[in-house]
Every structure is written in structure tokens, then in C-alpha cells.
């Protein structure tokens, strides 16, 4: 009987396994994923011949646009209205582990791709991403073209996944169906969503919902579960401020809402979080629309059409126009942005439901779809502020909302010339309200997103005018400026004078003229100013167009600009040529490796980590290759990453450790040392001893580089010198460990606003020359040799007499100092960059400070002495109390705040890294300096100066303070021809 029972049960089970299942849920090898969104159809005249499906073979097939990434082996689907590129298998980009994600989505032929990456995941862990392993092109022209992918969850091989991307002839976007089957033995929690990787300064997510629109609750990886919301669609548009902008939106093809979360960094939109027991499955069908509009309205119009077909929700098309006397144009977000929200005048703003956002056309007219039969409040925003609000009850299809008249602005023409030649200069204009009251009148944001600016002249992350800045080309620029009273600065780099006009902007046209002078003798002969860390729109977190990016290099009078876009190689040389700058500005092709997928575990921590960011250059730009020829930088330790990069270098290599102690973002560390939670009170081991420090020095299997095999390290990062004390502390630590790493100073600029290109910069002593004859090998060798000062203006020239009596400059080569050696220091700066003190640092301690240096009387002077200090100090005085070899660094600038280490290491223990400043000003860093509720910090920046105080104008441009440092003199005091590590205690 029992045998019979088993036989019968088995037969039933086998029979069931043979039942025909829907689509590919059966997992059969021969299955075909069902066509997505069968309820959705679009009409058009016969466009079947426009359908295309192809494997990309050349860069010309890439759709174009600032975020275009399609490369050889990727798949392109196109119809008459849209084109989409899906990463080929084996191609890794950002959070996509193996291809199959959307890299590009643009209106057909418009070169307006605004998508970084759209990928499928079921959670927030690395293993929750789908790893596609097989693909199939489906050519059903003239009806449809499709790409079918199959794979598994990256962390669970027994969860199978299928996705079909499909374009039909009249589709205004791509329809997508994803299926997942839980073949595991455990119940899973899946949040099957499309992840939208914005990464800040790019497209912004917009969702309808009370108080939402562009506004979303903030969260981190620990609080993310609490910010899941449902919304009828998710939309986004780029904000580069130029014409290369498109919008896109997604709506479910099976349900009334999507569930997910949103932030400026990443969005998720998909199915509700669901328990999926073994043998359970999920199917997610959605339509991702794309439209050629500057606001999100174009794609939302399509999304509402999808919803009409899926849910029966009717929409109404409404229209109106904005007007402003003397307006130069209205077809930009800075001039006019219309938000239409469900509600009425009495509905509190946080209860209104924004449904769409529109940028009017050049004639001021706009139209958009909204759900029918509702009452709406129409807001018009201009220059970052809401200026008009009108309510409309029960709007009907075709309703004209009438005219919205915007307040006047001033049209300001800026003229910047070289006083010596009266020739126009490339320059940057900074518009700063004269006081807090004026600031309050003009402060604005892009619908609450990005940074606030006063005045808000345009999207901070985009083209000029951006935030409160305007780029000047060949001496001329014109911009609309909100009415108010301002200090207006003209800037052309730290080797030029600074000019300021204080003016009241009135309605109508006006002109401001500035004359700048090259400060002769300030820049030492045989040096090049260079910024090794610059981003443009090619980066996933930048929207500044190439024209503005390169013009900003010229505006700062940089000699060398190293392009280091995140994860993609990019070449700014064509833009340099188009601007006629090729004879005085060199751009070097590089890349910033950027870890996205956590994988590395360290002792005493259960969270996987990434290795942070490294800049590498020079590389070859090859748009036919994934990442434009950049290395695959995930899932490897730094040593192996360097090994992967090694064959890609086109000249003398330079590897730079970036922002070594920066705070992690979304669980991803930005600097390897901080990821390792290194304890700087301990010496580095000679080899991997299993400790955190051991990981830092070890050489990964398969690599010839150690994990600390980089050449240089950022000591200054960003125009405001943020975290300088920590970057400097880490640099001093590795110098004390005998690692002769070159200290660098970079802007890490992603836009005109976050940091100003070339502030700070590296002053490299080299025989290389900028422009046509630039030799990157000679230049990089000078950097590797440490012939660099890092500065945001002050210039330090320093020498030490060696044992032969010759004067030696700083550099990585050790030398024996003369018995009675002296240190000669000359500090110079532009009048607007005051230097208040000079500091001498030996083996990680400031051993001498020359304070209260005389300050320039007129920050805007174009003549007069530029020398702020000339000193000669006996070396013996500086080395008192130090035994063995020593290194010496000289700093100049503003006095720094006293800082100390109260904790911050693993388990909250002290780690040798300063984390708290003397915030109560009692001369001691202790628990009284710590903010309420915290265990350490804050690590404050020096207070910004008030008008009349030193560096007021400098701070208006940088939000920082003057600062410079030399690279070390490595003093071989023992005379053994080597530099022996002083150790963590600095030889004391």
C-alpha cells in the first residue's frame, strides 16, 4: 500500500511539473517571456519600418546625450519615437553586476540620453541584483523588437529571473516584463523594482503624492524601510540647463500604483515588498516612457496614457502661458517651471498632490495632462522661487488656464577684460547678496532640490548661469538676475587680481565691466597649475555640459585639467579645441574608479564594503568599449584594481587615492582608509597580519601592486577645504610609515557650484608645458617625484640646504641635509588671498608657526608686493627632539582650528584621527566640545569671515579659507641613503 502511495504521489507530482506554465515561469529552456503590457497600445501612422534591433558595433550607434554609455556588444532597440540601449552580457556598469540593465534611453535621434542606469533588484544587498547570463534578440518587425534576458539573483543561484524589453512600432518608450521564481528552500522578501541610479546633480525623481512631487523623505540604509511609498508613476528629467534634456517616466501595466522610494541618489519603483515562499514567483510589467521635454511633463503625459489604458483613469489636457516683459527666453527651468498640484488655495502645501511639472516653450506656452475631474493649484516658479499661484476648480479637458505674468528681472551684461591688453577674458562671475536681508529676498532652489543659492540664477548642477555663477566667454556674458543688491565678483584664477562691483540690479538691461590683471611673478617659472580631479556630465553625478566644463577650466586659468569622470573615461580635448584653448590648456584623459558593489569584509565588522575612489591617468578614451575603455572596478581590492588598470595606461601612470577619510554615501565608502577603519595610532605591519592595517598593505592574489600602491593622495579636496584636517592626518600617518606618497590638492568639481574648478590646485614644478607640446610623461614624473605644492592660492617656495651645500626643494627623493642646514621659505599670494601664518610640520607635528603676517590693504589691488613672508629657519630648530630620519612640510594660510581624537574608530574607540574641534574655544579638545547626543564631533571648519575681515571675498568664492602646503622634504639624517620610517610616534 505504501509503495502504491509513493508511486501515485510521484506520478501526480511529475504530471504537475509538466503542466504548461505561463511565460517563462516554468523555467523551461525553450520558453519565451510573454510580451509586456498587453493592455497598452499607442497609435501612430505606419512606422513599422523605423523599428530597429542591433548589437552595437560602433560608437555612432550610441544614442548620444550626456549620459550615453552604449558600447560595443550592447543591444540597441529603437522605433520612430524612442531608442533604448541595454548593456550586453558581461558588461558591468555601476550597480549592474553583469549587463542587462538599461544604459541609455532617449527620444529617437535626439542625443538626449539622461539615464545613468535602470536595473532590476529585489532588495538593497549586492546579492539582490539580477545577474543575467543569457540573452536572445527577438525580431518581430514590423510589429515589435525585443531583447529577452535570463539569469539569477546575484546572491541566490536558485532564484531564476527573466526580463523582456520590447519596443513596438508606436511605443513612446520601452515596455518591460520581469519574472522571478523562488527556487530556493527559504522564504524570501522581495521588493522587485527597477532601480533608477540618479546619484545626485542629475535627473531628479518626481512622484505624485501628498507633499511629494520633487520632495521625498530622507533616509539611509537603516531607515529605508520606512520611506517606501506607493505612487501612480515615477518621472524624472535631466537638469543640465542646456538643450540635451529629456524626460522619462514609468507606470505599472498591471496595477494602479508602484511601490518604492525616492531620493536624489537613487529611486526604486516596482512591486510591493512581498514574502515569497519557496516556489513563489513575481511578475512585474511596466512601461518606461521617454519624451523630448525639459520638464517631466512630456513623459508623464505618456504615463497617464498608460494608466488610462491599464486602470481606466481619464486625463485632461490643460494649457496656459507665462509672460514676462523683457524675458530673454522662457524655455528654461530657470525662467519658468510650472508645477500643477491637486488641491485648492486652502490646501496646505504638504497636502497638495503634485501631478506634473512643465517647462514652457520659447513662446511661453505650455500644456500638460493631469487626471481629469480634479481641482488643481498651478504654481509658477522662476529663478528658484515660487512667484505665482492660482487655483482652478474641476479642470476639464482642453481648458486654457490663461496667462501667468512673471515679475521683472534685470538683464545684466558682464564684461571682463585683461587690464593690460583690454582683451576679453574667460572668467567666472560670482553674484553675492550684500547682506542677509538681501540674501533672503533672492534665495531659491529647484523645487527644493539640489543646493540653495542666492540668487538662484539656474540649476546649480547645470550649465551657466548656475546657482549664483555665470561663465564669461572671451570677456562677455549676459544673464537674467533677480532684482537686489549684490557684490558681483569677476574671477580668473588665483594668479590674477579679483574685481568686485557692488551694485543694485534694477529691471531692464545693465552692464558691469571688470578689469583684471595678471599678477606678474606670482606663479613661479617652470610650474604648471593642475587640477587632478574634475568631473563633467559624463560622470553619473554631474550635469555640467562639456562647453561649460572646459570654459570653467579656462576661467580659472588652469594649465592642466585631468578629467576624472566616475567609472567612465572621457576626453575633453575636442571641446578644448572648439573653444580655441588648445595652445594654453591641456586636458588629460583619466577616470575616477568608483566602487558601487560592496564585497570586502574587514575584521570586527559584518557589513560588506567597497574600496572607495581612485583617480587614474593617462588613459585612452575609446567610446566603442564599455565605460569608454575604463577598467571594471568592482569586487576587487585596490591592488588588483591597479593591476586591471595597468594595461590601460597610455603613459607614465599616476594613481591617486582620493578623499581618503570622506564619509560614506549610501553605505559606499569613498576612501579606502576610512573603509578599513584604520587605527592611525598603530604602525603598519610589514605584511598582512589579518588586521585592518594588514589589508591596507597586502598585495591581493593576482596583483603586482599592494593595496597602498598608489602614487599620490588627496590632502585638499574641494574648494571649501572640507575634511582637510582628516585628509592631512592620514597623509602624515603614511609619511610617518615611510610611504612617500605625494600630497595633492584638487577641486573635485562636478559643477560650477559644488566646487570651483582649479580651487584648489596643484602647482607642479615641471619642464612640461601646457598646450600643444604637453608631455604627460614628463608631467606625471614630476608629480610622482613630489615636486608639487597643493594650494588654493598661496604659493610656497621652499628649499633646504643639503650636505653638499646645494639648496634642495621638496620631493620624494631623500637627501642628507647640511649640518647647519636652514629652511628658506617664501610665501606669495594675490591680494585677495591673505596669508596669516606659516607652519612648519616635522614628522606629523607642527613644530613652528610664524603668525600674524601682514595682510594686503586692498584685496582688489592689481599692483604692489605679492610676497607675504620670507623666512629662513635653522633646520636644527625644527628637528629638536626628533631622532632618526624626518620629513618636513611647510604650510601657509589661515590659522587652523584645534582638533583632537575623541573616538570614531571601530567600537567608538580613538583611532588617531582628529574628529572634534575645540568648539567651545577653551583651548582644549574634550567632551565639552562634542555636540549634544553625539560621542564625537563636530569637526568644524573655520568660521566664514564677515565683511571687513581677512579673506571675506575669498570666502565668497570658495566657502573656504586660504591654504597651501608643500610636499615633504625627506631628510636622510642617518646618511644611509634611505628614508627610514619615523613611525606612528614620529620619531619622538
Amino acid at each position, binding site marked *: 500500500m505504501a509503495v502504491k502511495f509513493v508511486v501515485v504521489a510521484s506520478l501526480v*507530482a511529475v504530471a504537475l511539473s509538466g503542466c504548461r*506554465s*505561463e511565460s517563462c515561469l516554468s523555467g523551461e529552456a525553450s520558453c519565451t517571456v510573454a510580451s509586456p503590457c498587453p493592455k497598452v497600445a499607442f497609435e501612430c501612422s505606419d512606422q513599422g519600418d523605423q523599428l530597429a534591433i542591433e548589437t552595437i558595433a560602433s560608437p555612432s550607434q550610441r544614442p548620444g546625450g550626456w549620459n550615453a554609455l552604449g558600447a560595443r556588444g550592447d543591444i540597441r532597440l529603437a522605433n520612430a519615437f524612442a531608442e533604448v540601449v541595454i548593456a550586453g552580457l558581461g558588461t558591468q556598469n555601476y550597480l549592474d553586476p553583469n549587463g542587462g540593465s538599461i544604459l541609455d534611453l532617449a527620444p529617437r535621434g535626439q542625443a538626449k540620453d539622461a539615464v545613468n542606469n535602470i536595473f532590476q533588484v529585489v532588495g538593497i544587498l549586492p546579492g539582490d541584483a539580477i545577474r543575467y547570463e543569457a540573452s536572445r534578440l527577438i525580431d518581430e518587425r514590423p510589429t515589435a523588437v525585443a531583447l529577452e534576458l535570463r539569469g539569477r539573483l546575484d546572491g541566490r543561484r536558485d532564484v531564476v529571473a527573466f526580463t523582456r524589453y520590447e519596443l513596438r512600432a508606436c511605443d513612446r518608450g520601452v515596455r518591460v516584463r520581469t519574472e522571478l521564481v523562488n527556487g530556493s528552500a527559504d522564504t524570501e*522578501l522581495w521588493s522587485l523594482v527597477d532601480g533608477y541610479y540618479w546619484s545626485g546633480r542629475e535627473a531628479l525623481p518626481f512622484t505624485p503624492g501628498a507633499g511629494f512631487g520633487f520632495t521625498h523623505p530622507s533616509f539611509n540604509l537603516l531607515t529605508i524601510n520606512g520611506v517606501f511609498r506607493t505612487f501612480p508613476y515615477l518621472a524624472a528629467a535631466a537638469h543640465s540647463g542646456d538643450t540635451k534634456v529629456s524626460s522619462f517616466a514609468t507606470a505599472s501595466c498591471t496595477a494602479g500604483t508602484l511601490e518604492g522610494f525616492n531620493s536624489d541618489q537613487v529611486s526604486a519603483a516596482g512591486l510591493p*515588498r512581498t514574502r515569497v515562499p519557496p516556489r513563489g514567483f513575481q511578475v512585474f510589467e511596466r512601461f518606461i516612457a521617454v519624451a523630448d521635454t525639459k520638464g517631466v511633463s512630456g513623459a508623464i503625459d505618456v504615463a497617464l496614457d498608460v494608466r488610462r489604458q491599464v486602470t481606466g483613469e481619464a486625463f485632461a489636457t490643460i494649457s496656459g502661458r507665462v509672460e514676462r516683459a523683457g524675458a530673454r527666453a522662457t524655455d528654461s527651468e530657470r525662467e519658468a517651471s510650472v508645477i500643477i498640484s491637486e488641491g485648492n488655495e486652502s490646501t496646505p502645501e504638504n497636502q497638495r498632490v503634485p501631478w506634473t511639472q512643465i517647462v514652457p516653450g520659447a513662446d511661453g506656452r505650455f500644456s500638460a495632462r493631469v487626471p481629469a475631474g480634479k481641482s488643481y493649484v498651478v504654481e509658477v516658479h522662476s529663478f528658484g522661487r515660487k512667484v505665482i499661484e492660482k487655483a482652478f476648480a474641476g479642470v476639464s479637458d482642453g481648458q486654457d488656464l490663461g496667462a501667468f505674468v512673471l515679475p521683472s528681472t534685470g538683464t545684466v551684461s558682464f564684461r571682463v577684460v585683461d587690464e593690460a591688453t583690454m582683451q576679453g577674458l574667460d572668467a567666472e562671475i560670482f553674484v553675492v547678496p550684500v547682506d542677509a536681508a538681501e540674501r533672503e529676498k533672492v534665495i531659491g532652489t529647484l523645487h527644493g532640490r539640489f543646493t540653495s543659492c542666492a540668487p538662484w540664477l539656474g540649476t546649480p548642477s547645470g550649465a551657466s548661469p548656475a546657482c549664483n555663477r555665470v561663465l564669461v566667454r572671451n570677456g562677455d556674458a549676459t544673464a537674467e538676475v533677480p532684482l537686489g543688491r549684490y557684490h558681483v565678483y569677476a574671477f580668473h584664477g588665483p594668479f590674477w587680481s579679483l574685481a568686485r562691483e557692488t551694485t543694485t540690479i534694477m529691471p531692464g538691461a545693465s552692464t558691469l565691466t571688470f578689469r583684471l590683471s595678471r599678477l606678474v611673478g606670482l606663479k613661479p617659472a617652470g610650474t604648471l597649475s593642475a587640477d587632478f580631479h574634475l568631473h563633467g556630465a559624463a560622470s553619473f553625478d554631474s550635469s555640467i555640459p562639456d562647453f561649460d566644463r572646459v570654459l570653467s577650466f579656462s576661467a580659472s586659468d588652469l594649465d592642466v585639467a585631468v578629467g576624472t569622470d566616475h567609472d567612465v573615461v572621457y576626453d575633453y580635448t575636442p571641446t578644448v579645441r572648439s573653444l580655441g584653448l588648445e595652445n594654453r590648456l591641456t586636458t588629460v584623459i583619466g577616470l575616477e574608479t568608483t566602487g558601487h558593489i560592496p564585497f570586502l569584509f574587514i575584521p570586527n565588522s559584518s557589513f560588506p564594503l567597497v574600496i572607495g575612489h581612485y583617480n587614474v591617468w593617462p588613459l585612452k578614451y575609446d567610446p566603442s568599449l564599455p565605460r569608454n575603455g575604463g577598467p571594471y572596478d568592482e569586487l576587487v581590492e585596490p591592488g588588483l584594481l591597479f593591476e586591471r588598470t595597468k594595461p590601460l595606461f597610455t603613459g607614465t601612470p599616476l594613481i591617486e587615492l582620493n578623499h581618503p577619510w570622506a564619509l560614506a554615501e549610501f553605505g559606499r565608502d569613498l576612501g579606502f582608509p576610512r573603509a578599513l577603519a584604520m587605527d592611525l595610532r598603530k604602525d603598519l605591519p610589514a605584511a598582512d597580519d589579518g588586521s585592518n592595517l594588514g589589508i591596507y598593505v597586502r598585495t591581493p592574489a593576482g596583483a603586482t601592486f599592494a593595496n597602498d600602491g598608489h602614487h599620490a593622495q588627496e590632502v585638499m579636496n574641494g574648494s571649501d577645504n572640507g575634511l582637510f584636517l582628516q585628509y592631512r592626518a592620514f597623509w602624515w600617518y603614511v609619511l610617518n610609515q615611510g610611504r612617500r606618497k605625494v600630497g595633492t590638492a584638487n577641486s573635485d568639481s562636478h559643477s560650477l557650484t559644488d566646487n570651483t574648478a582649479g580651487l584648489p590646485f596643484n602647482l607642479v614644478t615641471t619642464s612640461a608645458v601646457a598646450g600643444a607640446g604637453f608631455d604627460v610623461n614628463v608631467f606625471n614624473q614630476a608629480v610622482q617625484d613630489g615636486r608639487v605644492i597643493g594650494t588654493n592660492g598661496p604659493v610656497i617656495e621652499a628649499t633646504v640646504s643639503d650636505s653638499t651645500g646645494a639648496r634642495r626643494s621638496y620631493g620624494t627623493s631623500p637627501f642628507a641635509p647640511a649640518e647647519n642646514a636652514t629652511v628658506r621659505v617664501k610665501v606669495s599670494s594675490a591680494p585677495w588671498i591673505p596669508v596669516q601664518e606659516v607652519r612648519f610640520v616635522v614628522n606629523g607635528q607642527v613644530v613652528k608657526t610664524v603668525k600674524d603676517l601682514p595682510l594686503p590693504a586692498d584685496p582688489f589691488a592689481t599692483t604692489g608686493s605679492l610676497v607675504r613672508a620670507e623666512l629662513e629657519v635653522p633646520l636644527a630648530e625644527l628637528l629638536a627632539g626628533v631622532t632618526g630620519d624626518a620629513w618636513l612640510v611647510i604650510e601657509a594660510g589661515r590659522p587652523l582650528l584645534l582638533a583632537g581624537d575623541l573616538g570614531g574608530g571601530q567600537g567608538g574607540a580613538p583611532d588617531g584621527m582628529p574628529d572634534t574641534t575645540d568648539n567651545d574655544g577653551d583651548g582644549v579638545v574634550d567632551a565639552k566640545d562634542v555636540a549634544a547626543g553625539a560621542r564625537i564631533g563636530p569637526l568644524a571648519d573655520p568660521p566664514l569671515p564677515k565683511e571687513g575681515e581677512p579673506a571675506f571675498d575669498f570666502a565668497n568664492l570658495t566657502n573656504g579659507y586660504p591654504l597651501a602646503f608643500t610636499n615633504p622634504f625627506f631628510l636622510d639624517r642617518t646618511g644611509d641613503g634611505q628614508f627610514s620610517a619615523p613611525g606612528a610616534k614620529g620619531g619622538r
Partner: protein
Amino acid sequence: MRALLLASTLAASLSFAQTSRGGCVADDAAGLPEGPVAVGLGLADFGTGRRACARTEVGLGVRGAGIIDTPNFYGNVGAQGVLFGSFALRPTTELFASLEAVSFGFTQNATLTTTQLTFGHLTAGATQVVYGLERLTGAITGRLLLPTSFEVPGMRLVGAEVGHTFSFRPNGWLEVHGAVGAEVTAAVGAARSDPRFGGFLLGGASLQPVSWFAFVLDVTGRVGRVSSLAPAAGLRFRIASFGIDVGGTLPVVGNDRHDFAATARFSWRF
């Protein structure tokens, strides 16, 4: 003195021990649950040995099981409210059924969490004694998993289990039991049925020093999609015909990720 007291207590206890009816519990301990610990690690407690002896009873219980896998940022905890009953058709034949009237689940993936409340599994089966010696009773048993659960969206689970179980009672206070079985489960719905086969082997003993209390210790080995070796322990009480059965198990070897499974059952024997 202490030894004397212990010996007296043991003697008194043995004097309360019932006489055996083959391997089955005697009438003077009627409400006391018997057989293996009534908790397992499988679906609807498949792979849990069943008693060999027929009885008529009804009861309700709660069952909980969980996986807390912190290193992998995973957690899954479930609890079911169970109605169960059996009917002794003959002294050697029993029909039985168990229904998870309510099934609650909480699952965590990193910091994402969700819960689920559904109707659970229903199983029904029969046990037939095939041999009954003086101290040994053996039976074959089988049950079906019926497609009642809403736990798997879009799919219904079915399955069957057959096995042999025995009870050996060498004296009035010790019962040795064992079971061996095979199972198959499959899904019915839009996705693949994914039939899964498995088997188990169970051995254990029940120490019953008094008529109102027993202590049970089992070890179960399972093979299949999930394999494990899992000890289980249980405590049993009775008040007349009312029985209380609590027990728990956890895998110590194998790929079963459970950190615990436990049950508390309350029954009335007719």
C-alpha cells in the same frame, strides 16, 4: 537520606506507571500525548514522525519557526495557529487532519521587512497499525497536503507523505519510538511545479515517570532539498483527558537554516 528519598520517589512513580497496550499508552494516562515530538522543520510539519497508535482527539496549537541569519542580513519568522484532530476508526486505524487556520510570517531582507497573514496548510491522512506485539506496535501512515494555503501568491502547494512508525514500550515508563518516511511536495499554479522529494528517519524515546508527565527526546535526519540532523525535545502533561504537549527542535547538521522551531499543543482525548 537524599538517596533514600530519591529511591522512594522513583518507586512511587513507577507504581503510577500504566500498563502497556502493546506500544501504546494505557488508558490510565489517556490524555497524555504520545509518539515523537510534534514539531518539525518541514512544510506543514512534513517529515515529523507520527505516533503509531490510534486515538480520538481534538486540539489546537501554535507553532513557530524562525531563521535569524545575521551575517547574511536575513530573517524569517513564522507562526501558525493549528487545529488538529484524529479519529480512531478502529483500534488499529486512525484518520487525522491538521489545519493551519491562521499563518503569520515576518521576513527581513537587510533592513527591508514585511509581514503576511494568510490561511495556512491543511493536511489529512491515516494511520494503520500493521503489527501489534506485546510491547511493540508498528503502523504505516500517510497524509496528503491539500492546496488550501494562500502563503505562496499565485500558487497552491500539494504533497503527500508515507511512512512507517513504531512504538516500543519495554516497561511502563519508557517508550522507544521511530519512524521512517518519504514525501513529495509540488506547486500548482502559473509557475513551475518544482516537485521536491525527501525522506526522513527518526528515533527517540519518551520517559514517563508518572502518569501525568513525560519527557521526550528525538533525533530526526532529513534528506532532500533541505537536509538536516535535528534533535528535538518535548514535555508532555495531562490532566485527565486534557493533554499539553510542548516541544522544540533545531538542526545541528545540514543545510537547513532554521534556528528554532517550537510548538505548544493542547488536546482533548475522547
